[in-house]
């Protein structure tokens, strides 16, 4: 067996990637609200200001539009900013800089400019943070040509992908799940880079292909465990990068299974699950033995109260139920 390294929490995987890239490349700089002494609201940058100084790790005012916009300008001039937007809901403030500036300057300059900036942000629900602090808006950014969108789940993947995102010469929106920073998983000691745009098969199986990402992947894996006891063999795929999407890995799996379920924490309408299923159905109907299914949140702002929030979010039981339907 290869070195499985040590177990780390998700926040530490992020911190490791930032630290390694800052040690390697002087042009990697960070800013965001309360990322210095406070270490970021989820501790992803703890200790980095002490180690790299206030020039390279800056606390920023509550000015998301400028936090992101300044990153675009710095990136244009050869820096590699990695900015933290405290919650993904506030990416809406930063959206002009990300969608109208970062995403478009390569194109609008006819290929003269490049914008190697990373916009990190915690997304997702499940902790009672309610409507304005719980949204999953990955599909918004997937809809903007010029951006790459990454949604890791496993700590090891988060580290390897963030490192690649930082080295990428294009703007990357890197979404972490806010209820997932203390999730523990193995991470190798040695440096590891994982390519953007490449999915990972988290569990091999033969009956159903189950695609999921971010924290929701945990519920997919739980459902797969449950169904194995019922004799259903599930292949679980984590795309990890949502744009560009690695359809090939999904198609290879479907060639075996012929059945597809996609589950994500965002709600279904115009979600990334719709895109994945559309691409499969449009070009590869011949692979399918049953109509694909989506498992996702109820279409509502996330409620504060626990029973309502639970009812709104997908879980392992919901996923298992959908899988049973497609194998029936």
């Amino acid at each position, binding site marked *: 067996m290869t070195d499985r390294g040590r177990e780390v929490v998700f926040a530490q995987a992020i911190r490791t990637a930032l630290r390694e890239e800052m040690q390697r490349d002087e042009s990697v700089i960070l800013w965001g*609200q*309360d990322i*210095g*002494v*406070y270490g970021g609201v989820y501790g992803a940058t703890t200790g980095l200001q002490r180690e790299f100084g206030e020039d390279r790790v800056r*606390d*920023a*005012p*509550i*000015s*998301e*539009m*400028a936090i992101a916009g300044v990153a675009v300008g710095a990136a244009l001039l050869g820096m590699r900013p990695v900015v933290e937007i405290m919650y993904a*809901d*506030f990416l809406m*403030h930063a959206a002009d800089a990300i969608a109208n500036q970062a995403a478009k300057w390569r194109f609008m300059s006819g290929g003269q400019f490049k914008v190697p900036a990373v916009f990190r942000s915690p997304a997702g629900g499940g*902790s*009672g*943070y*309610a*409507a*304005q*602090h719980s949204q999953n808006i990955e599909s918004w950014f997937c809809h903007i040509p010029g951006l790459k969108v990454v949604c890791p789940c496993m700590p090891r993947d988060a580290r390897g992908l963030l490192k690649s995102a930082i080295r990428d010469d294009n703007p990357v929106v890197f979404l972490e799940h806010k209820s997932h920073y203390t999730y523990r998983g193995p991470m190798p000691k040695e440096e590891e880079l994982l390519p953007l745009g490449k999915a990972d098969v988290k569990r091999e199986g033969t009956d159903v292909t189950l695609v999921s990402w971010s924290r929701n992947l945990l519920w997919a894996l739980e459902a797969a465990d449950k169904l194995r006891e019922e004799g259903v063999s599930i292949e679980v795929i984590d795309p990890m990068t949502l744009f560009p999407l690695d359809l090939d890995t999904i198609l290879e799996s479907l060639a075996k299974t012929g059945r597809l379920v996609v589950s994500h924490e965002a709600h279904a309408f115009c979600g990334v699950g719709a895109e994945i299923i559309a691409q499969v159905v449009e070009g590869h109907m011949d692979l399918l033995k049953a109509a694909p299914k989506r498992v996702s949140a*109820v*279409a*509502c*702002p996330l*409620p*504060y*109260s*626990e*029973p*309502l*929030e639970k*009812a*709104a979010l997908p879980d392992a039981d919901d996923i298992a139920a959908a899988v049973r339907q497609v194998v029936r």
Partner: protein
Amino acid sequence: MSEQPSVLLGYLRAMWVIRHFEEALDDLFGRSLIRGTCHLCVGQEAAAVGACAALRADDQINSTHRGHGHFLAKGGDPRRVMAELFGRATGYAGGRGGSQHMAGWDIGFLGSNGITGGGIPVATGAALSAKLQNTGRVVVSFFGDGATAQGAFHEALNMGSLWTLPIVYFCENNLYAMSTPLRSHSAVSSIAERAAAYGMPGVEVDGNDLLAVRDAVATAAARARGGEGPTLIDCRTYRFLGHSKSDKREYRTEEEEAAARRRDPILRFRALLLEQGHASESELAAVEEDARNLISEAVEFAQASPLPEGDPSAKVYAP
């Protein structure tokens, strides 16, 4: 101006209600009886109560993530505010909103806000309606010092002034935005100074002096009602507790916190009432006891209330 003892005792009581409400919450959070996050305003009670004391009942306010005090000061029922925090069906939003998203239409509370600065343009719009509908109402928008770094702050104040709207921009300047001190997030040390950029008066006030806050807001509200437009108030105060429940407060010293506690707005006002002979020691003690009991009842009410059930997507759209 001669002050009525009963009114003054009312202010004191309102501050104690907020203090006990927040301290009860702190305890409930510590025991994991309440989920999510919440931002307490212990130490800032005079700002909320002083400002609301200058308003008419039909005036409107909106607020921030640190909004329980504003809600209570505007006349919110502590039982239903507490029930909202417990996620109960009897809460103001039936458990849908939670700490950062409180709303009380009947008392003119147009929402606290999880988006820093997000409420400032909304309040400005409410003031536009007050003007167009000739209601004679004034709107007060509460926000923190940190929020003044948002584009929304600048854009709204400029429009509010250009359109001469009946609004008071009330900055609860507790000298920190989370862990970031004012000097690290604002290029000028006085928020009041910013008013010059929008052609409106900027007023600095000691936010731990209830009567000073009330009078500053009364002047600003009279100006707004009189059709002369907005005022920016820089209300200097201090939050005694952490930014939220997870804050270890490593960014400030114990000495600084102790010095702030010596300026406790409630104890200060209480001493004033005693000194000026507005109330006896036993009357003052009774007011606090009364507030404490009200909050115990609120917690009991909330805990005994049912949880919401049914379709989480109900109430997303107006019918």
